[in-house]
């Protein structure tokens, strides 16, 4: 079997503050197979976004961050790469989509200028005409009706859903093998969120892109992901296929999370015990979903 697109082993993260070390990740391991859509789900402060930032190599630039563990991308040890080579991976082989599309786009440049920058990361010699053609094709792929007009617009002239589609188009423009999506639908209206996720889902399937999907919304995860890791306070507490996790949650934390979601079928507001005992219980991997079995 070929190497997984991403393999994280025993990743630890702490921040050194004047008052001492604050431990954020306590040794998490996860992997994403080729073309797999893997969700990392947890509450705010659980360590899900920092994980994506470490994969991209952004957190490493913060001088107070203490990171250990191994990161393997398509069989390459990322920590052994020269900064220049690692920089070159970003925007080409791996790319990221953030929560708030309107603030991820630069307000003082039209969309095309930014799109061309993205394309130039893979092909620095790309000309104006070619870039425009590629950008138009990419925008058409995300169901944008008037790509020409959108390219000449500024982010603030477009709706949130439109901006997020532009972000998706840019993120996939260089055909990355890994897409990091950090709460990509959270800032959007529900109907727009549903459309956006559907679109993203279709596109990554066509391109065979692997996705690390970060979310706090269990419903969205259920609809998008093939496999799920549940993270609580910097520890993975449960891992399973999406089907296994939602039909038979095992870890006390996952059970509490799932029972706290109000149901559209009714049943009242769930009564959540204050009791958090058991939330720090060791990792539960469902049959066939442990790191060892998946990577064998």
């Amino acid at each position, binding site marked *: 079997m070929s190497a997984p697109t991403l393999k994280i082993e025993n990743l630890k993260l702490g921040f050194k503050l004047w008052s001492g070390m604050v431990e954020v990740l306590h040794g998490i391991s996860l992997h994403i197979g080729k073309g797999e859509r893997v969700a990392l789900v947890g509450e705010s402060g659980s360590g899900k976004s920092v994980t994506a930032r470490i994969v991209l190599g952004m957190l490493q630039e913060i001088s107070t961050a203490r990171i250990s563990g191994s990161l393997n991308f398509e069989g390459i040890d990322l920590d052994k790469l020269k900064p220049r080579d690692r920089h070159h991976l970003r925007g080409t082989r791996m790319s990221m989509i953030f929560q708030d599309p309107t603030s991820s786009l630069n307000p003082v440049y039209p969309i095309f200028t930014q799109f061309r920058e993205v394309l130039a990361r893979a092909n620095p010699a790309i000309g104006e005409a070619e870039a425009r053609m590629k950008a138009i094709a990419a925008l058409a792929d995300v169901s944008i009706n008037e790509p020409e007009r959108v390219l000449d617009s500024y982010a603030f002239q477009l709706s949130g859903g439109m901006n997020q589609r532009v972000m998706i188009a840019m993120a996939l423009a260089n055909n990355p093998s890994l897409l990091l999506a950090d709460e990509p639908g959270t800032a959007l209206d529900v109907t727009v969120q549903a459309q956006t996720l559907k679109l993203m889902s279709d596109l990554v399937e066509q391109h065979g892109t692997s996705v690390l999907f970060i979310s706090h919304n269990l419903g*969205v995860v259920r609809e998008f992901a093939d496999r799920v890791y549940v993270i609580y306070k910097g520890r993975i507490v449960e891992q399973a296929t999406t089907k296994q996790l939602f039909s038979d949650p095992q870890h006390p934390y996952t059970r509490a999370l799932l029972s706290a979601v109000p149901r559209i079928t009714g049943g009242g507001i769930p009564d959540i015990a204050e009791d958090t005992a058991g939330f720090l219980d060791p990792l539960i991997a469902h049959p066939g979903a442990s790191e060892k079995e998946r990577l064998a």
Partner: protein
Amino acid sequence: MSAILELNGVSKEFAVNGRRTKAVDNVSFAVEKGECLAIVGESGSGKSTIANMILGIYGTTAGTIAFAGEPLPERREKRHRRAIQLVQQNPLSSLNPRRTVGASLRLALDVHEIGPKAERAARIGALLQEVGLEPDYARRSPAALSGGQRQRVAIARALACESELVVLDEPTSALDVLVQARVLRLLAELKAKRGLTYVFITHDLSVVRNIADRVAVFERGRLIEIGTTEALFSSPTQDYTRRLISAVPVVSDEEAAMRQHIMGDQA
């Protein structure tokens, strides 16, 4: 049943780039005393504009709003401001960071002269306990609280002046799901205990399903459908409502089947 709040032909126009845009278009509905009416819709549907008009932050361009049977003046009197209170989405920005929790609550009591002065400190402690916090939280600043605790303080402040109608503008959207469930339960308990009336503004239909008595659906400033929660979720009459319900991300097969059923009706 008597209506505590009545909107009659209410419209609101804003001038945007020199053009007049109708944010709320000829809306009429009533809120019964003791009920929770949810106002749902997507961004731009006018739900927050309605909240602001109920609170008197915006005046209306046309139409009237009546509270407890009497029309509300453009410039609200103090008793109106006491009776109608607001809980906002983000307590970090709605609570003054320079004031302790106690001082924020005290201000509400002092402005509206609730109870004798000597008893106000004790009242603050009681309010905090009512929202599930220890009385000594009064000494803390909002920065020293978690998101859920801050929202509890914001709720306590809305109740401090013995309000009758509380406008809840996305009160749990910024909270994690476990915290959200607890805050929603608290809101339901307080409503029953104090006989409060809620106007609950949200985009989250699964929350609405479990807390509201009735639901009003807004699309582009217009009220397109209003009905009991039960009826609206089992047989919505408008396509827009169906689309909203079917777009809700769900966590169980049972819910997915219900969504399917709702969309199936359309075919």
